[in-house]
């Protein structure tokens, strides 16, 4: 049985937001002007980081839930979400371990 299009849209948005979170960590830690810009935007890089990731999830989820994504199985998305979450978390830990 396939997922409701709202569910599928928000799960795909979560997968993208989780991957983007790790990419943003790498980018701001390796490129100091980006971190300085994020600090200047909302007063602290962590607040700007939070705003970007939560907004990405909510806005992308809203857009994708209106998109004709086709038939998507829940078990398949559960496996992708698990793998992306594990890889993204290990990536962050590994980055700060070896930085």
């Amino acid at each position, binding site marked *: *049985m*396939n*997922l*409701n299009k*709202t*569910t599928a849209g*928000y*799960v795909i948005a*979560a997968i993208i*937001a*989780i991957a983007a*979170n*790790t990419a943003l*960590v790498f980018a701001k830690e390796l490129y100091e002007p980006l971190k300085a810009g994020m600090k200047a935007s909302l*007063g*602290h890089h*962590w*607040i700007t*980081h*939070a705003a970007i*990731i*939560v907004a990405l*999830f*909510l806005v992308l*989820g809203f857009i994708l839930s209106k998109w004709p994504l086709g038939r998507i*199985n*829940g*078990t*398949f*998305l*559960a496996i992708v*979400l*698990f793998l992306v*979450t594990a890889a*993204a*978390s290990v990536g*962050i*830990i590994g980055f*700060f*371990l070896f930085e």
Partner: protein
Amino acid sequence: MDKLLLLTHPTTGAIAILATLWTFVEALNASGRNHARMWWASLIGATMMAATAIGGGYWYVVYYAVDKAAILEGPWPIAHTLVMEAKEHIFFVTLVLSLLLPIIIRKEDLSMNRGARWLALTVAALVVLSAFAIEGAGAFIAMAARISS
């Protein structure tokens, strides 16, 4: 005020863990009768996780600099360079997953759709496990700050 905030955000985090664990158990036994209860449990989890983000974020931005300086001078600098740095960023994963769970439960009939039930169970398990790890990381950082000051 800073000590109150320092105590508040792990408490709301623990409530979020309990509510998400409750959601997980309800999803294991999903039926037409427990759908509303499961949705409320997931909503409590998401709300408490958002409260944790606000409380913990405020403490981190306003008060953490003093502890950070002490930790970096102390015997466990890894408590900041690895544990806090990883914690403050992996938390966003937990937050996004917490916000996702009520959406899945609201839109899907977990008693009829096996794939959706697996999805809800996976998201709930990831929230519980990652939040537990973050609570442990917080305790490690608090200990490092204590022995450094």
